[in-house]
């Protein structure tokens, strides 16, 4: 085993045992003497810096004489201190003399030119005026709108082309997405749908019972699940589960230059990545919605069964109120929701910028954008369906 004790360079971490001392005194009128003894390194320079700063501010010397003959070591932080003295004196028109500095440290100190560091390089907060903020926000909104329209056009064209030439679609990828976004979502959709039907029926049954109208819970659960809650809840779960996944997946591909690789290979990323995902979502969302409707209705039936009604009376009461138009209207809505959730997920993924936080931002924007779009579209559907008499 070699001997680890270093004869020529003490350990930087053991600087606490090598006490570093700074002595300051006025050695002549207007001349501040600074003597540094020991190691001037990252650990010790902080105190030295503060002492020197205080003394120089107090005395405002014309000349500073730094004696470093007993300074055994000086690292980058110490170099920063000596450089700061030099810079400060040069700025104030004073003089600085460094005595006894070992040539190797002098060599490193000479690498820096005080005139290049005239301003203290403090981290400046980027202040932006109010008008500029409004301008920037407007530009950003316009850019986003432009990107959205561009994307809608591209994706729409690619989807139409895919429908005209189904052979061009990468069905294998699409089915894989359908499996992860659709089949794997069955448990969570089932659970949320069941509880939603159950809770809604339970909350409604208690006040309705006072009027002996609890059988109408079947109407309430059936209509609200099939027309509204089934599609809406499925789409929200899809946005949280799959919209975010699409954005993260495409965002990571963008960062890893996989999207660039597709483009340079002559493959259209929209056709290759977006069409498969959108098709999968459009196929899977109505199926999931149907599943949610059924499970929700089942959940409602539990409440009425527990109140002594038979399953057949529950079912008969429901079909007297809910017809196929309601069901199809709900399923059509879910197709549109699926299209929007998948589209916004892919768009945000493709818009991912560089950096570790970029994928996170895209994912958040995909989910938030997806949910906002779903709710807005649902409102529009309500109005349209009302006028159509659906």
């Amino acid at each position, binding site marked *: 085993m070699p001997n680890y004790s270093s004869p020529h360079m003490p350990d*930087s971490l053991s600087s606490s045992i090598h006490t570093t001392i700074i002595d300051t005194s006025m050695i002549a009128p207007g001349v501040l003497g600074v003597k540094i003894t020991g190691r001037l390194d990252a650990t010790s320079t902080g105190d030295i810096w503060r002492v020197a700063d205080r003394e120089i501010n107090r005395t405002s010397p014309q000349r500073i004489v730094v004696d470093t003959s007993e300074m055994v070591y000086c690292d980058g*932080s110490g170099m920063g201190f000596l*450089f*700061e003295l030099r810079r400060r004196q040069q700025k104030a028109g004073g003089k600085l003399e460094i005595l006894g500095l070992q040539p190797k*440290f002098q060599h*490193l100190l000479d690498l*820096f030119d005080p005139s290049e560091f005239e301003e203290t390089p*403090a*981290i400046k907060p980027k202040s932006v005026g109010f008008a500029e903020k409004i301008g920037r926000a407007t530009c950003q909104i316009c850019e986003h709108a432009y990107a959205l329209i561009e994307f809608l056009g591209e994706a729409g064209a690619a989807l139409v082309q895919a429908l005209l030439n189904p052979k061009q679609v990468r069905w294998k990828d699409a089915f894989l997405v359908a499996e992860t976004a659709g089949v794997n979502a069955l448990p969570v959709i089932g659970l949320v749908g069941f509880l939603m039907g159950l809770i809604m029926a339970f909350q409604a049954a208690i006040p309705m019972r006072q009027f002996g109208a609890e059988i109408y819970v079947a109407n309430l659960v059936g209509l609200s699940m099939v027309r509204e809650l089934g599609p809406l809840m499925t789409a929200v779960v899809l946005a949280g589960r799959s919209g975010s996944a699409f954005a993260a997946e495409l965002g990571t591909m963008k960062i890893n230059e996989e999207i660039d690789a597709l483009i340079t290979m002559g493959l259209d990323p929209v056709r290759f990545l977006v069409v498969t995902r959108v098709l999968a979502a459009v196929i899977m969302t109505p199926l999931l919605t149907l599943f949610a409707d059924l499970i929700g209705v089942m959940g409602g039936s539990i409440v009425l069964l527990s109140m002594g009604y038979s399953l057949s009376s529950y079912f008969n009461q429901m079909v007297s109120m809910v017809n196929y138009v309601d069901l199809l209207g709900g399923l059509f809505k879910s197709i549109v929701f699926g299209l929007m959730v998948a589209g916004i997920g892919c768009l945000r993924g493709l818009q991912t910028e560089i950096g570790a936080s970029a994928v996170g931002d895209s994912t958040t924007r995909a989910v938030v954008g997806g949910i906002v779009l779903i709710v807005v579209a649902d409102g529009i559907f309500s109005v349209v369906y009302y006028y159509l008499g659906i």
Partner: protein
Amino acid sequence: MNQIQDPIIWVENLTAGYSGTIVVDNVSFEVNRGEVFAILGGSGSGKSTLLKLIIGLHKPLSGRILIDGQDMVSAEGQERLALLRKFGVMYQRGALFGSMTLLENVRLPLEEFTDLPPPAMDLIAMMKLSLVGLKEFGDLMPAELSGGMQKRAAIARAMALDPQILFLDELSAGLDPITSADLDQLVLSLAHNLNITFVIVTHELSSIYTIADRIIMLDKQSKGIIAEGHPQDLRDHSENTFVRRFFNRRGASDSVFGEFDGESQSRKKGA
């Protein structure tokens, strides 16, 4: 460099691997204080694994790693933190924090580990950036820089606390020749003036001829060291044909070698 003077890194019978596959088998070597040491090898020869073992990112299957006399493998808690403070690492792709500006990246270790006044931290961080030629870019985000600039900023961050050892993973890969030569000079200057030990992991020869005092070469097949010494000696006198071929490939011409070798030799005499 046959005599062992003052090892700062001591690796003994090191064996390591992943999921049943041995990558580094029974490797022993030492790095002397203040020298520029290079770990060479082709792709898949285990040089990155060796680096990760030394800096404590992976645990070896067996063997010892001593840094400045302290065991890196078994160190825990405060002892491990103290060991980590002894070295800085420049990762191959920079690994700068994307949410901070360059200056903030370099300033971070100073903020966390020293009690310098804030303007002092700014100045020192700026001086480190100036050393790598990035003084004007302190307020930019890493994403706004080219790959080479990110790498230089990563060196500045690794140097922030002036550690005793600097590990540089692929120093010159992806850099233009002028920047690369400037960095070589920086390495030489820091090694000579501040006695910083450099461990450079690379498969590129150009910098090695300029700056390395000593190298080891790893081999994929034997999973161990097939050559150890000064690059010039290995090029001319190695008995291993693979080593001779490695050193005699284009880019390591006699003229280039001779020009830099003189400087390297004179530095050693001075050190």
